[in-house]
């Protein structure tokens, strides 16, 4: 059984935040650059394309936790450089700060570096764009806090964490409008072959931890509370 493909959760947050930002600023344009096997991309677009309006730039290539992040960044950079009419001086490059598949936090940063973008932010939860083009951005840092920075403006890379927006509801009108261009674009997707970049797996194992769980079904709340308080106080 193969599970259905989904857009990476942090990448999805990035997409919805980008769409919200574009909606507030007339004249903005939103592209979604996505790498994956064509059949999986088509499946993902069935849901994502109903959420927000965008132009798809697909790259036919492998996905998952094991393809190399450096090679993925190179393929995505090539796709972005090929977008006709893209004004890179005005580019805000949004993506997930990590992926759920690989969890490396490497791809977007190297992509920004390849595109020569000198202002990068990661673990982003909020951006507030100002009339003069500058923006204030909140990034997650240690201890449950946010670092607040002000950037003079685009170009910039923003690697999103969750952000603050809920997932948009499905909008069939947007879906139909998107799919008119998405389907032919998918057919023309260029193929990317990703170099392994000398990565070798010495060993792979399942997590060793399996605890012998004591399940208590007959203790009263008082007894449980007393045991928990004693446990909390141990070695404190």
């Amino acid at each position, binding site marked *: 059984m193969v599970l259905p493909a989904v857009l990476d959760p942090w990448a999805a947050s990035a997409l919805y935040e980008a769409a919200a930002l574009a909606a507030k600023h007339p004249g903005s344009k939103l592209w979604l650059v996505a790498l994956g096997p064509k059949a999986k991309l088509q499946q993902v677009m069935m849901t994502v394309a109903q959420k927000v309006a965008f132009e798809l730039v697909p790259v036919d290539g492998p996905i998952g936790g094991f393809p190399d992040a450096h090679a993925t960044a190179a393929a995505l950079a090539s796709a972005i450089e090929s977008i006709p009419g893209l004004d890179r001086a005005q580019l805000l490059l949004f993506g997930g700060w990590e992926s*759920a598949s690989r*969890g*490396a*936090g*490497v791809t977007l*940063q*190297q992509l920004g*570096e390849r595109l020569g973008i*000198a*202002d*990068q*932010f*990661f*673990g982003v939860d909020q951006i507030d764009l100002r009339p003069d083009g500058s923006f*204030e951005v*909140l*990034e997650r*840092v240690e*201890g*449950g*806090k*946010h*670092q*607040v*920075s*002000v950037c003079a403006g685009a170009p910039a890379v923003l690697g999103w*964490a*969750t952000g603050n*927006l809920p*997932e948009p509801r499905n909008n069939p009108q947007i879906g139909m409008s998107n799919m008119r261009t998405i389907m032919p674009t998918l057919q023309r997707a260029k193929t990317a072959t990703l170099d392994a*970049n*000398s*990565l*070798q*797996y*010495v060993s*792979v*194992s*399942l*997590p060793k*931890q*399996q*605890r*012998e*769980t*004591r*399940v*208590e*079904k007959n*203790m009263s*709340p008082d007894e*449980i*509370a*007393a045991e*928990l*308080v004693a*446990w*909390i106080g141990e*070695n*404190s």
Partner: protein
Amino acid sequence: MESIFVLTHADESGSALTKHSLEAVTAGRELAARLNALLTIGIVAADAHRAASAVMHAGPRLLAVQGEAFAQPRFASDAAACEALCRAAQATIVLAPQSSRFARVMAAVAHRLGGLIDTHITALGGADSVEATRWFYRQRIEAVVTRIARPWFLLLDSGTHAAFAGEAGNAPVDEIAIAVELPALRTEVTGIRAPKQDEQTIRPDAKLLFVAGAGWTKKQPDGQVHVDEAGRLILAFLRASGASLGSSKSLVDQGGEGNSVLSFLTHLNQVGQTGSTPRHAKGLSTCCHGEEPHVVGWRFIGERRAISLDANCGWTRGKADVVYIADAFQVMAKVNELLKS
């Protein structure tokens, strides 16, 4: 032959290395000893002289970048600093803490040096080569990887090595400081935003992690939702115990879906595959399903207990040490009474 370079940075004071940085120093010393390799320590700090004193005797060679521009955790200046340090060190293996500051720049620095990078490393091994251990969360596996390409950058997760604690000394800054050519700086860090002290529920240094699951906001045996009472019980427990608060994804997502929510919870509290990976000594889960996308975030929690009404929840299947099949509202009320007395 390998040569090891450990990159470190100062904390918000600008003049003391972070604990996480000192853990990376330990990792570098161990690796250098195992491979009989040259070790260099690099420092990024506003005041490198004071920051370097903690690692004066950690390795044979120290390099530093210092100045006001490096007081701020900022991509452009930190990347330039780390690039300059790496070029000066000419090492084959670069270790650095996976702090938010260095996670922001290190992949870019690796690209500038023509190197490769792997992140979230939890262990370093190999008899006469370098092997790095990392988790692949979604795949539920732990892998040991190696690369022959050099330089190879490795970002180390916190809590995986003891923090280096050596004799302090006076660092000859003039001898160790190197020049950095800064690009135009278009970003300014203006501050830190944190919940007010009494509302801060995320406590990385607490002994106990308390996780609240979506069950707190579901209908209770009386057919009613008791969100206010849930909030009071949870906050009272956090105040009494000093625990840190975590949450399942489903609970924090409820805020975006218009359901009853616990107002003090944000996505920053989320633990799990798309949340944080806390490292507290003990964890107590309440009203949470204990399924793998959440539990994967618990892999560094030492002792685990759970309270759930579901005798078939994930916690009972080897994920926790003890599971109490009970009503968390009743149990936590009693716990709070005992802690208060």
